[in-house]
């Protein structure tokens, strides 16, 4: 299903059959179901009539008279059926009982409301590894299990499931409806290749209406949330690098020196303080990275660190609006030109590369708070302005700089180099193919723990009583009763 996640939409014919099913008894629910017990009355009537219709053997001395009558009568087949007035009476009673049971239909397609579930996705690198016994990735396997559960629940409750997908590096939740997972959503949930994200802090997400999607069953057993863990075998491979060569894990206890690590890249975009750009080039040479400046990151392979600066300002007015502030850490200080906080028009902060650090980033930092540039809230503030805004943030594979110009104070060069070298080392993405040993270890068996609590506050429309439904039944009952009475009167 995940290979072709979206099921073809129903044909018009299929849709009309669903509508027909709803009109028929299949999708009816009853406000007074106790009345349905009374359906035994018409059934008993028909049963008694059928029993009575069975001929009984009667020896009689007046056989000759009966024989004469039988010879004169037409076929008995029609006469042995229950009389029409009895059938009408039974129909009248049945319709009256159904009307008294107050049939109702649900307002939406499956006769129930909607349920909103939050799916917390583990996007750690191991999710891209193969699941047990299948070519699919662990993400695909876990999604399959969740999809199956969703389909079952939807069929059982009649509710339409709304799924809100959250992951550590998603700027905003993704949404889908129904049990099927759209193909583009699956692609968006795959673990990023440029960065190694950690698994969510599951205990913070143990709440009603939450589903965990991971590969290895978390050490925390959910009390309210559901858990879909794909499991998976150990995957031997690169687990690190040393002296320009891979360190390989053999799947057991041994780590061996492997092949040479391919050359990585480091590139920079946007306007960058000259002192930062110059040090970055030195750093790249020191770490044997190919320095690239100005290209688009999407056109480069093997990028291990990108350095993003503010976009170049074309407006002289904005240029004049920059303000000078004193920044520094790790023993270096300098004067930085940054966009002003209050006076900056909308978009300036983003344009200037500044990221607000204030405001809640919870739970477990999974709610993206960044703006429209898609920057993740996982980025940690490395250098802060006096007003609390972030001037430099760092995350795996990426360093964002919100400073237009930086002038170091005298004697701060050495401290500046050591400080920024530590920043770049921490943000440097591993060489291609390297996964932490913990990621490569076996994820155990597949586990599905169904949620113990449904979403709270899910808007659910109450069953809607439709007057035409029981009104039509009542009318049919009256019509049948009248027909039965008329037949009876006619004798």
């Amino acid at each position, binding site marked *: 299903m995940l290979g072709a996640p979206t099921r073809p939409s129903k044909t018009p014919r299929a849709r009309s059959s669903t509508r027909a099913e709803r009109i028929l008894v299949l999708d009816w629910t009853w406000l007074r179901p106790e009345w349905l017990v009374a359906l035994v009355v018409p059934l008993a009537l028909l049963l008694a009539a059928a029993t009575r219709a069975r001929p009984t053997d009667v020896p*009689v*001395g007046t056989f000759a008279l009966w024989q004469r009558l039988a010879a004169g009568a037409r076929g008995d087949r029609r006469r042995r059926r229950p009389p029409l007035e009895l059938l009408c009476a039974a129909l009248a009673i049945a319709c009256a009982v159904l009307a008294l049971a107050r049939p109702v239909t649900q307002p939406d397609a499956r006769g129930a409301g909607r349920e909103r579930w939050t799916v917390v996705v583990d996007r750690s690198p191991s999710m891209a590894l193969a699941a047990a016994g299948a070519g699919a990735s662990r993400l695909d396997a876990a999604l399959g299990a969740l999809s199956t559960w969703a389909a079952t629940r939807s069929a059982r409750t009649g509710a339409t499931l709304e799924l809100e997908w959250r992951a550590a590096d998603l700027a905003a939740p993704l949404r889908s409806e129904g049990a099927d997972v759209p193909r583009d959503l699956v692609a968006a949930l795959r673990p990023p290749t440029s960065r190694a994200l950690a698994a969510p802090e599951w205990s913070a997400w143990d709440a009603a209406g939450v589903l965990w999607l991971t590969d290895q069953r978390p050490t925390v057993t959910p009390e309210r949330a559901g858990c879909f863990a794909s499991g998976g075998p150990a995957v031997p491979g690169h687990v690190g690098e040393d002296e320009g060569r891979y360190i390989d894990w053999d799947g057991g206890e041994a780590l061996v020196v492997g092949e040479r690590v391919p050359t990585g890249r480091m590139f920079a975009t946007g306007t960058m303080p000259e002192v930062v750009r110059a040090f970055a080039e030195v750093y790249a040479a020191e770490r044997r990275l190919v320095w690239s400046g100005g290209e688009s990151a999407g056109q480069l392979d093997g990028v291990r660190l990108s350095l993003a600066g503010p976009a170049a300002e074309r407006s002289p007015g904005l240029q004049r609006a920059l303000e000078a502030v004193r920044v520094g850490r790790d023993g270096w200080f300098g004067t930085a030109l940054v966009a002003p906080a209050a006076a900056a028009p909308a978009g300036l902060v983003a344009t200037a590369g500044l990221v607000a650090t204030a405001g809640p980033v919870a739970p477990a930092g999974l709610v993206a708070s960044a703006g429209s540039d898609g920057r993740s809230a996982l980025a940690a503030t490395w250098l802060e302005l006096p007003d609390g805004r972030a001037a430099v943030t760092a995350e795996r594979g990426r360093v964002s700089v919100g400073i237009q110009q930086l002038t170091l104070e005298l004697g701060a060069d050495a401290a500046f180099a050591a400080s920024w070298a530590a920043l770049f080392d921490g943000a440097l993405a591993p060489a291609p193919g390297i996964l932490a040993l913990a990621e490569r270890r076996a994820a155990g068996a597949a586990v599905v723990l169904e949620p113990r609590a449904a979403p709270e506050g899910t808007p659910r429309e109450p069953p809607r009583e439709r007057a035409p439904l029981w009104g039509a039944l009542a009318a049919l009952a009256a019509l049948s009763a009248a027909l039965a009475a008329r037949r009876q009167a006619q004798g």
Partner: protein
Amino acid sequence: MVELQSPFVAFAPGFMRRVEQFVPRLAAARERREGAGGARLDGAGLEFVGRRPYRPGDDPRRIDWELLAREDRPWVRVLHREAAERWAIAVDVSGSMGVGPPGKLQAAAEVALALAAVGVRARALVTLHLSDGPEGSAPPNVALRRSGDLARAAEVLGRAVARPSARGLGAVIRDRRLPSDAGRVVLLGDLWDVSAAEVASLQRPGRELVVGRVLAPVELEPGQLGASAARFIDPEDGRSALVALDAHQVAAYQEDLDAELDRFVGALARRRIRVHAWRSDAPFEDPAGALLDPR
């Protein structure tokens, strides 16, 4: 083989006591009627038993003229039939008499025994004839002269069984099994196998021929079966006819039945032969009284 519902005869424990109570009552009524001049039966003679005031309709030949002259009001002589009278009672045991419940044979046997008791009390020689005997046996006859003979009659009747293959009253008539000098002949059965002409052939001058025709409730009121259809079976040869018991059919049947009974009664009435039809669930006193004391 047709399975009959009520082929046997079983007299209830208190039945003979009911007969003992019934007989004097009926005998007194008969004496009033026949002793007053209505007697038509053959017999050796009449015994004078007393006088009573004249009532309109009394035979003027019975008026005691001497007493009339002396008392200045009419009296009639009351005479009792002497003992030489002979009765013959024939009971049908053919298969159709096993229809019931209550069984028609049971009803006919009870009436036959009550009539026999009345005859014995009237000092008549009563012979009881079953239309057929047990399989392979001759039809039993019982002669009764005294009241003590009633137990034997009850025993014979109690052994009677309505069998599909048994012969009916038609055989009794055709075989001339009834005594030719019987002054009173009673035929008890459903009479479906006998024509009115055959019955009339038993009539003789000075003989009272009475026919008791018994019908089961199911034959008189088939609507009480409570079924919408029935397979009616001829108890004697097993033929069947499937009939829808709707109101129309039931009404048509009852119309045919009434016409058949009326035709039979009418044909015999012209020969001064009385026919009384009764339901098998009626107490024996009713048909027995009606057969001997028509009022």
